[in-house]
C-alpha cells in the first residue's frame, strides 16, 4: 500500500507532448514511447514533484466526480505502472 503523503516526481529527461486530450511521453533514450489517455493525462499534469498523492486524489475526485476509494485504487495502479516504466519515482 502506498503512502498518501508520498510525492510522485517525473524521472530523468522526458519529452512530454500533449495532443488534444492525450499525452505522448518519450524517454530520454528515445527507445520508449508511451501514450496516456484523457484521465492519464489529467493525472500526469498533477505530477509536478510538489503535490502528494493525497492532494492528487482530491483533484481527481473533484475533476471526475468519482468515489474516493475507487479513485485511490485507480490512482495507485496508475502510479505503479508509471514507476514500472521508469517515468516517475516517489519522493
Amino acid at each position, binding site marked *: 500500500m502506498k503512502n498518501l503523503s508520498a510525492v510522485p516526481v517525473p524521472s530523468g529527461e522526458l*519529452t512530454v*507532448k500533449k*495532443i*488534444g486530450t492525450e*499525452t*505522448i511521453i*518519450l524517454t530520454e533514450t528515445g527507445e520508449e*514511447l508511451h*501514450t*496516456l489517455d484523457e484521465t492519464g493525462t489529467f493525472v500526469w499534469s498533477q505530477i509536478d514533484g510538489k503535490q502528494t498523492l493525497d492532494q492528487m486524489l482530491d483533484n481527481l475526485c473533484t475533476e471526475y466526480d468519482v468515489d474516493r476509494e475507487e479513485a485511490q485504487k485507480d490512482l495507485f495502479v496508475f502510479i505503479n505502472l508509471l514507476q514500472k516504466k521508469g517515468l516517475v519515482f516517489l519522493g
Partner: protein
Amino acid sequence: MKNNEYRLRIGDSVLGMRFRPARYTALFRDYLGRECAREEPDVRMDFRITSRQQEAPVDNSLFTSKLLTNRGFEISGGLIKGHYDRAAQYGKIRVHEALMVVPTIRVFEQLLYQAFFSSKDGGSRDAYLIHSCGVIHGGSGYLFVGPSESGKSTVARLSLPDTVLNDELNLLLFSDNKITLCGTPFNGLFKEKSEGYCELKSVFLLRQGLEHKLVREPGAEAVKAVLREIVPPIGLDEVITPQAREEMLDLAIRLRETVPVYRMEFQPNRGFWQLIDQKIGNERGRE
C-alpha cells in the same frame, strides 16, 4: 558524369559522390537507376571502398550504430569511417566493400540519408524522410506508413497505373499550411517507381487484414505510429540526440495536425483505393 562524380538529386538537394575504385561509381548509379544530375552538388563525398578491415556483421541501422570520434565518425563497428567538414560541405569516407553488394547496399543508402540532412545545414529544416510508400492518385498525394512487412511494396504494386513515387522512403516538404510529398531515388522492392511530387492529402497506417477497412486515427496513437517511421534528421557529423528525437516527435505531431491519419487494413487487391475514394470523398463532402 564529370570527373567520375555521380550526382544524385533528392528533393531540391544534390549529393555528389566519387568512389575509388572508380567502378563503384557506375555500379552505384546503375543500382539506383537515376541519371546523373546536372546541378552542382550541395554536399560532396569521396568514398574509398576497402576490404582492408576484417569483415564484421553489418548493422541494420547506420544511425544507432554511429559514434563520433576525435577523427570524425565511425559506424557499424568500423565498417564505415569518415570525416565531414561542415564548412566545406565535404566528406571523406572509407566504406567496407561488404556494404556495396546487394542486399546490404540498401543499408549503405542510410549514409546518404545523413548526407541529405547535411545538405540542409544552415537553412530552415523543412524536409524530412519517412519510411513509407508514396502514391499520387487522382491528383493527390497519399502516404502509406508501416514497418517492414506491413505491405508497403504490396500497396505500391496494387496502385499501378497510379504514379508510385517510392515504396520504401519518401520525402515530406513542410510549408506553412501544407505538406508536399516527393519521391526519393532510394531502392525498395518495387522497381517501377516514378519521379514526382504532389500535395499530401492523407496518411494511412498499414496493416494487412481480412477485409479492406479504414478507421480515422486522430489521437496520440497516430503520432506514435508515424514517429517510428521518421528517419532521424541528423547529418554526417552528428549522432542522434534527445533534441533530434524531440524534433522527430514535433514533426509527427505536425503531420497529424496537417493531414488526416487513418488506420488501414487491406487485402491484396486494388479494392482499398475504392474505399479511400469513398471515405475521403464523403469526409470532404461533410466539411
